[in-house]
């Protein structure tokens, strides 16, 4: 009787989340992504006719090509710069003996908690014609008149790196903090220089953190709507905005679904690469 009761109890514990995830996460997302295979219909959201035209349009229509390529470029650069900036920070946080460690951790988490809108607005203020960046560049003599930074890819990239970098720092931090510092010491005792120790010992050991962080930042960038809309304007359209417009104004659900599919495809490719890489290492 006891085990029967246990089973029922565990069902009560894990039931709510199962229902929630299946009914409100997995089922609707599958339905939405499946729509990419159907024909567009102005009156019924979609016509029950299987077609490849949505994907064909994304791949061969110049307008969508540009948007997809731009998104991939910005997402790649955002992930890259998040890694370049996030790695030293994560390394420092994982190795420091400073009493301020807790506070320094908090300062990485705090921006994340303010939400996307607050930080995007911060960049509008910083990068505007009257903003601090222009003021500083002019005072230093790099510019004679304020430059237009808002509305460019650079503005979007800067803000996205800033907004998404914490997502890179946390996985990096956990993989670096779980490393045994004795391994690094062993490498240097055996005569490896600091650079060599870093490249051949520390870096490979933090591989899982790098890929986790990169996958997260890449996907979050590719799916962002608000930041490119406010900082990039009409000139820097990205996939996320495209999906938003297709769903809210054009009401072309099948095409929106195909566009979202591109997003999911990219993400799964990275995760796949991660597992493949992991297997070849194990062999």
């Amino acid at each position, binding site marked *: 009787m006891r085990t029967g*009761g246990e089973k029922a109890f*565990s069902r009560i*514990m*894990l*039931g*709510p*989340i199962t229902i*929630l*995830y299946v009914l*409100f*996460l997995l089922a*609707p997302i599958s*339905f*939405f992504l499946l*729509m990419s295979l159907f024909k567009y219909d102005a009156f019924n*959201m979609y016509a029950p006719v299987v077609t490849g035209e949505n994907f064909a349009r994304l791949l061969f229509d110049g307008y969508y090509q540009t948007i997809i390529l731009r998104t991939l470029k910005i997402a790649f650069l955002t992930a890259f710069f998040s890694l370049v*900036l996030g790695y*030293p*920070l994560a390394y420092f946080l994982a*190795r420091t003996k400073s009493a301020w460690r807790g506070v320094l951790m*908090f*300062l990485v*988490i*705090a*921006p994340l*908690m*303010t*939400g*996307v*809108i*607050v*930080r995007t*607005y*911060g*960049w*509008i*203020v*910083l990068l505007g014609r*009257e*903003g*601090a960046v222009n*003021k500083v560049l002019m005072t230093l003599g790099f510019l004679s008149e304020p430059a237009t930074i808002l509305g460019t890819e650079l503005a979007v990239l800067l*803000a996205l790196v*800033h907004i998404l970098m*914490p997502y890179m720092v946390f996985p990096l931090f*956990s993989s670096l903090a779980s490393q045994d*510092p004795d391994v690094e010491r062993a490498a240097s005792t055996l005569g490896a220089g*600091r650079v060599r120790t870093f490249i051949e010992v520390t870096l490979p050991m933090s591989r899982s953190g790098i890929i986790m962080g990169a996958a*997260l930042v890449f*996907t979050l960038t590719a*799916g962002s*709507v*608000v930041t490119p809309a*406010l900082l990039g304007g009409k000139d820097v359209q990205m996939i996320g905005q495209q999906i938003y417009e297709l*769903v*809210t104004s054009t009401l072309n659900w099948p095409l929106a679904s195909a566009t*979202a599919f591109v*997003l*999911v495809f990219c*993400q799964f490719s990275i995760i796949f690469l991660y597992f493949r890489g992991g297997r070849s290492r194990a062999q």
Partner: protein
Amino acid sequence: MRSNASETMPGDDRRGYTKGTISQPTMEFGYLRRVSMGILVTAIYVFLLSPIIIVVFTSFNPTTANTFPPSGFSLRWYGAFFESSGFTSAFQFSLWLGLIAAVAATVIGFFTAYGITRFLTKKRELGQSLAMLPVMIPHILISISLLLLLTVLPIPEMTALIVGHTIICLPFTIAGITASLEGVDKQLELAALTLGASRFRVLVEIVIPLIAPGMLSALIFAFIISFGDVYIALFLSGPGMTTLPIEIFSYMQWESTPVIAAITTLQILMIVVLGLVIERLVGLRKIMRV
């Protein structure tokens, strides 16, 4: 000696782990190396924090333009915020939504965390990864799919918004509560069960009191996540149910006066206070362990 209340929390293993890391021998930094590392890390922190600090400064700007440095000191934009019914009602709406979603995510998160740590012995890793699913899925996708669900099933829009927020908060509440549960001695529960207490009674009288700080932290963190969300609300908010970030977003598409700075400064203030409460209770790192 620190007299932090959470230090004495029974079986709080994450604390011990942090302490251990600090006392572990680390590489000896050369002087030059240490200085250059210091400069680099400082520069990264400046990059991380300046857009937020600048917002606080701008909110006291007396003029309409988003100029920096501010040309004086004034509270006119705070006045403008409190006079704007659009912003104040959105603020209230976000508070309520955050509260409801946070409570839901904490309750379901507690059930899940307890189920995973106590009942999924072999499939524990799998269970934990599945629970983290909403972090791995772009939120815009979750939001659109819920909008799609609304067109198929007769659910009120408000429910979809609450469900969406609950879903994006769940990974954080589960991670936080799981960490707290790992610190609870299973023998205590076993003893109570052997003495004839029901599973339910064990939860209410033993487990929940022991992890109360962890649960409260999870609740606060979920509230913060919900309050800052823009992507779930992007598709699911409608007339009479606009969240603050959406209200700000639609306002900023037309103009951006420092009234936004005033609102976001208030939001930053609220988040810093709540963040410090969590830090005091269990430590923020515990929750950010995604």
